[in-house]
């Protein structure tokens, strides 16, 4: 039996990017806020010492700061006709654990989605007719426009100190930036990172092909910066230990560098770590949340009453908490009814590697989001008519690292061990450069999340089941993108290239990307969305759900920039809700 604690104004489930931003913005107004975080406290000064942070074995191989499957895992299958089995070692994606969440270990690529992405269904039908939409799709327009989100993208970029070069300020195209981006009010707060030799070649080659390369926006920042919360960051040292690592240099935007130093000074804020929320409790009529129940590190159960429940866990776990709490109707692919778990999506990865001669790319001088990119093949920036697919990809030439244990690209056909392998590693390390395409994934009737009928977690609750595969539309798109990447690699002067097509069926073992989206999507129609346009539950008006779980489908970019923008968008809605509680949109 849970013991009941004194009421709080706000309970925040999960203390990552979205949870820390909301906790800070709400507690600074004097509201009593408690954040419940499943994992441990993490802090740059104590956890990411410069002398020990760059430990590839500990962090990249042994996955030190990630969620342990024993804490929570998923079952997985490709199609509804298969029987799902539990993921026993995280592979294709790596959920974070602890304060800061995935914001600790991300690479730092901080994109704004393109204006067309927000109304992709309407836009594609208008331009190409209904028949361009793939079979079984559930693609839907976002309930917000780019222009509505622009000030909130800006707010997040200012807090995170993002380094980049604007391509479109108030409709004026800026040389050297991304000409396809939506109009922004002002430039990034810090200038782009210094680009390497590979990016120089890419930029020259792509420009020669009539494409529009630019330095990609980065949360590994280029110069010292103090954000609007007073939190300070130091310039990136290009050490190449970003993805899967906490940054020891205070150079990568994270809740630790950008929000927590200010948040922990707020007298009305409290964090309880190693406390796992097991349920959002509802009133008898099911229309209001009364708070949450959680289990602490000693296995003791507590009830935390609160007026407002903000669901800020990782996207997948937001969906599971809603399913376990009975908030919103679970999605059933057979009938097409229900919404929670609907429109789960992911990301494609494809591209080409180029093998050069007489070059030294120095891949070890890297940063998680150092790189040159182009958007000519993203969203609907090109004519989809001849290709017969929906969606696109951002194309980049980047080194995120040249770390010793895992970075040793070799030509296809090289043995996996022995003298020939060693020779190939040595020959290739300085001479290999990749051009990659990170592509969109549309939403489909049979890609979804629900509760597994068989497998349970240590607390006896059903695991969540993921049913997902790349559909023909995504395969066609990603493989076409790989060819575009190969063209660029050749134009850069590669002596030989090899194509990396999209791996199908989707396999949970090799790492691909931790860009899991959807399952609790925002929308204009309660029959096809869990949340209204203000990220407020259609069913329980004092529950707001943050994160990429709200994406109706995924775009050809990393999600964090849009997650950040939605958080500030949601914050304004929460302020409105507090003034006048109730549904912000009438269904």
């Amino acid at each position: 039996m849970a013991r009941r604690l004194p009421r709080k104004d706000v309970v925040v489930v999960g203390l990552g990017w979205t949870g820390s931003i909301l906790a800070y913005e709400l507690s600074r107004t004097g509201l009593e806020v408690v954040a419940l975080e499943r994992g441990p406290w993490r802090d740059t000064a104590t956890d990411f010492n410069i002398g020990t942070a760059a430990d590839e074995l500990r962090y990249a191989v042994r996955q030190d700061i990630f969620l342990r499957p024993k804490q929570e895992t998923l079952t997985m299958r490709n199609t509804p006709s298969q029987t799902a089995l539990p993921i026993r070692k995280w592979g294709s994606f790596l959920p974070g654990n602890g304060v800061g969440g995935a914001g600790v270990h991300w690479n730092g690529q901080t994109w704004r989605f393109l204006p067309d992405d927000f109304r992709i269904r309407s836009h594609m039908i208008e331009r190409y007719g209904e028949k361009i939409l793939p079979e079984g799709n559930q693609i839907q327009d976002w309930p917000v426009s780019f222009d509505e989100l622009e000030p909130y993208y800006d707010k997040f970029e200012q807090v995170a100190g993002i380094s980049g070069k604007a391509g479109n300020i108030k409709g004026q195209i800026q040389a050297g930036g991304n000409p396809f981006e939506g109009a922004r009010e002002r430039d990034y707060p810090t200038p782009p990172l210094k680009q390497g030799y590979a990016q120089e070649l890419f930029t020259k080659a792509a420009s020669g092909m009539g494409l529009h390369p630019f330095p990609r926006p980065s949360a590994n920042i280029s110069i010292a910066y103090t954000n609007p919360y007073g939190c300070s960051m130091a310039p990136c040292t290009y050490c190449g230990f970003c993805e899967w690592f906490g940054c020891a240099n205070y150079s990568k935007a994270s809740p630790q560098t950008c929000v927590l130093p200010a948040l922990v000074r707020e007298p009305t804020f409290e964090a309880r770590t190693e406390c796992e929320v097991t349920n959002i409790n509802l009133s008898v009529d099911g229309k209001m949340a009364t708070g949450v129940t959680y289990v602490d590190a000693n296995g003791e159960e507590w009830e935390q009453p609160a007026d407002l429940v903000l669901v800020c866990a990782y996207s997948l776990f937001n969906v599971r908490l809603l399913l376990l709490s009975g908030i919103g109707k679970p999605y059933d692919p057979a009938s097409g009814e229900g919404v929670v778990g609907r429109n789960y999506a992911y990301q494609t990865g494809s591209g080409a590697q180029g093998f050069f001669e007489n070059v030294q790319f120095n891949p070890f001088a890297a940063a998680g989001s150092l790189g040159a990119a182009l958007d000519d093949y993203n969203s609907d920036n090109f004519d989809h008519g001849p290709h017969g697919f929906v969606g696109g990809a951002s194309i980049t030439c980047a080194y995120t690292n040249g770390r010793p244990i895992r970075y040793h690209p070799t030509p296809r056909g090289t043995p996996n061990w022995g003298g020939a392998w060693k020779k190939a590693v040595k020959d290739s390390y300085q001479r290999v450069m990749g051009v990659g395409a990170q592509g969109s994934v549309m939403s489909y009737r049979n890609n979804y999340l629900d509760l597994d009928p068989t497998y349970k977690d240590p607390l006896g609750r059903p695991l969540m089941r993921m049913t997902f595969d790349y559909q023909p539309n995504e395969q066609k798109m990603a493989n076409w993108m790989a060819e575009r990447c190969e063209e660029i690699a050749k134009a850069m002067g590669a002596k030989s290239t090899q194509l990396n097509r999209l791996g199908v069926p989707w396999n949970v073992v090799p790492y691909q990307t931790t860009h899991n989206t959807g399952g609790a999507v925002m929308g204009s129609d309660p029959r096809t969305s869990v949340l209204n346009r203000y990220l407020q539950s259609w069913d329980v008006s004092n529950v707001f759900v943050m994160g990429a779980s709200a994406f109706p489908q995924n775009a050809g970019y990393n999600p964090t920039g849009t997650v950040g923008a939605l958080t500030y968008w949601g914050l304004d809605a929460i302020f409105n809700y507090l003034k006048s509680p109730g549904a912000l949109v009438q269904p």
Partner: protein
Amino acid sequence: MRLRHLIVLLPLLAAGGAAADPDSYIDVARGKALATVGDCIACHTAKGGTPFAGGLALQTPFGTIMTPNITPDTATGIGSWTVDDFARAMHEGRRPTGSYLYPAFPYPYYTRVTRADVEAIYAYLRTLPPANNAVNRNTLPFPFNIRMSMIGWNMLFFKPGEFKADPKRSAEFNRGAYLVEGLGHCGACHTPFNSFGASKDDKFLQGNQIDNWAAPNITNDLHAGLGKWSADDIVQYLKTGQTRTSLASGPMRDVIENSTSKMPDTDLKAIAVYLKERGAAGAGAPAPLPASDPRMQVGQAIFADTCSACHARDGGGVEHMFPRLAGNVIATQDYPASLIRIVIAGGRAASTNAFPTAPAMPSLGYRLSDAQIAAVVTFVRNSWGNAAAPVTAETVHDLRSRVVHASD
């Protein structure tokens, strides 16, 4: 909120027979501000303990002193003290019984505080919730446990009396002097001790060795003191914990977080004006070691490898994050303890409302030998215009044995 607090304690004041006017809200608020200047909370609070309830172990050259409970608890605190009792402690270093306090309680400074200010502090302390916390006040070893010995000490070293303003100086200077020489008791750390543990008046604020830290010279000395700082730099430092080139850490971090960052700008400015105008005194800079010196060459290699990613090759640091080492007086103090121990054990900068980040210096003692630390510290002390005596491996070894388990 504060008013409600006050109402609750009215009966308490009556019960305590306090002489301070219990109706005076202003006195309490002023007293709280003055207690902040004095940073009373720092010594009178045990680690993790109730504020002002005492029990912190102060390490002195003569042994450990446990700080007393100064909440208005009658049994274990100062609940039975009258305002006269309190003033006697502050001004004369005596308890109500007449027995003597040790100057770890800086009454040689507090004797300068006006009676009105003492009364305000008393009024504030009476508003604290009484905390029952008995502290063993007799932990000094023989012969220092004989409190009567303080009669002689006081005769030799204690000059009682309220602060007297210097009519030849500005009101601002005098305000600064009153704060620094009185409640702020800056000299308690920043002035060298004689062998009896008394501050050497002739070396006032010229720097001190305390608890294995160098409390730097804070006269206007160009080499080791505040000579290169403007008055605004000093205000900025005390208010935010940093200037454009330096970040506070070590014991000064606590002073800034608990005390100076909460003081009004006018008082900080007065302190700055006083420190800048009262003059300079110091030993002067030696000639720097030549870059060709083998110790410098070894130190330079270690610096490039271990330090330069943050502090930069030119020692320039990163504003708000990593202190500038070029021209940094902490680096060039005669007594090099602060620099050495930060390399060995790391440290963390002050966190203030203005700059909450509080970046950390990692501890490097686990992978640098005594000789390596001596070399890199010697390099820092003699590069980019810095000049100070070289450091030996023996000095590092000696300090390491004393600070390796220090928490800061």
